[in-house]
């Protein structure tokens, strides 16, 4: 039985001056679903992400999250609603240990106010969140003690930290921006397992990816973008052989 759509995007358009980066884009992501978004460089994938996350203001269109319009909200409010993201290039908070990085992800989930930070309830909450953050570090398999310096992490570990930090915000929708880029084959396989585990918890995953070999076995559905336009949408096995996709990826010779 298909579950409800948590994210609905309709007619989403973004123009930078004369350039149309994203053009009347329509798609939706359901709870527990992994939607892969592929396309060559400059296809508008990252722009779509930044529009949903509130980093860019859209020119036109509508984005509904859990039934509510979120377009125009500042990024921190969108995060508070349950949309968390990772960045294509790892962007940890350099001045904090691993666990504090993850705890920043949980920022919007703290119930105790600023005046109560010295109170017993706040201290209990802090301890409980800290425990949960340590569990997330375990879940993604970072393999480092919670108090490790982020500067000592490898590139692959940094990617896992990005995911743990986003999960700490208890998202209902997780936006992953090319999570496999720069990872070794073994790391990619482990990452795929983690992403399946996240979707199995009922979290919707919108995944931008360059690498079809990584994406096609993982995604439940795939949307293909080229020059800001969605050119195909369907099950991974259907996408693989569509002429338009092959053309976009391999040039017009391949399609003929």
């Amino acid at each position: 039985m298909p579950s409800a759509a948590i994210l609905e995007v309709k007619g989403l358009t973004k123009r930078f001056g004369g350039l149309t980066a994203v053009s009347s884009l329509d798609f939706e992501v359901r709870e527990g679903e992994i939607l892969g978004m592929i396309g060559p460089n400059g296809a508008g994938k990252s722009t779509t992400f930044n529009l949903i996350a509130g980093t860019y203001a859209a020119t036109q269109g509508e984005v509904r999250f859990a039934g509510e319009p979120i377009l125009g909200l500042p990024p921190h409010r969108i995060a508070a609603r349950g949309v968390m993201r990772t960045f294509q290039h790892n962007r940890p908070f350099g001045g904090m240990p691993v666990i504090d990085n993850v705890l920043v992800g949980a920022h919007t989930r703290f119930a105790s106010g600023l005046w109560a930070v010295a109170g017993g309830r706040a201290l209990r909450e802090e301890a409980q969140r800290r425990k949960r953050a340590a569990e997330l570090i375990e879940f993604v398999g970072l393999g480092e003690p919670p108090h490790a310096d982020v500067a000592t992490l490898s590139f692959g570990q940094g990617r896992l930290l990005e995911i743990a930090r986003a999960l700490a915000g208890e998202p209902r929708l997780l936006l992953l921006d090319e999570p496999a880029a720069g990872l070794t084959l073994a790391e990619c396989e482990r990452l795929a397992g983690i992403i399946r585990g996240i979707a199995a918890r009922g979290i919707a995953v919108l995944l931008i990816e360059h690498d079809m070999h990584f994406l096609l076995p993982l995604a439940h559905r795939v949307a293909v973008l080229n020059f800001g336009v969605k050119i195909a949408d369907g099950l991974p096995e259907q996408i693989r052989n569509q002429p338009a996709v092959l053309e976009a990826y391999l040039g017009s010779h391949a399609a003929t």
Partner: protein
Amino acid sequence: MSPLLRWLGAALLLAGAAFFLSDYHNDVYRKLLLWVTLALSYNFLFGICGQIAFSHFAFYGIGAYSVVIFLFQFHLPFPLAILLGIALCILFALAVAIPSTRLEGFYLALATLALAQLFIVVLNEGGAVTGGPGGLANYKLPEFLGTRVRGPWYTAVIVLLLLGTLAVLWRLDRSWFGRACRAVRDNPEVAAAMGVDVARTKVIAFTLTSALAGIAGMVYAFVDNTVNPPIFGLDNAFLLLFMVIVGGAGRHAGAIIGAALLFLLPFVLSPLIGHHHVLVFGVLVVAAILLQPRGLVGLYDALRRHP
């Protein structure tokens, strides 16, 4: 040892020391404690939240002047004068922080520099209310509950101020708010994506630390029993910045060590090289920035890791 006992022990030790010091040394000790208190709150603003502001010492002055003016020019009752002084600091802090934190960091530096300069102008031109260039003097700490705190007992009050400030900042630093401040310092865009309201976090940190500086200023007003414009000039605003950088920005221990070192250094250096000690400060700051951006505390950490 439980944390509470540790704080209590520190209070007794630091306050107890005052009873064994001469009047002169008590005066030096009080100022040392006040500098450490100021450096602690400035470190939260600059080192932890990453806001480059030059108004911290001006807020110290606003606190000092306002309590004196409310008490002895307007003859308000003591508790009311204190509350109004704090309210004034919060009001000024909000007025500076709300417009400037919405822009990039550079504008906060400019706005706070302007505030610090404007404050001195207002003090000099304030006529009878501020006492003009000569400031206000010849007043005494009012009696409170029938007693007037003085001598080493007043030093004990300053110890309580220091430990109270440290306790507040310590607790904040280890909460979601402290992490949000550090996240805003390290990368505001990512902090926002994680749900941190960057502008709000900056405004709260600025207002809170400025109010703490104002409270310290109120306590200072009864150390020398005189307030005048030169005390609150920009020299001291920069000295505060140097203290935090040399000690190690972002660390409470750094603020304490930096403040103690740079406050006490002139007492050692002046007999040897006179006013050239300022030169030594400059060299220390440049050395800290170039060689050890994490300051003396960072140096200590590095030595402990690779002995």
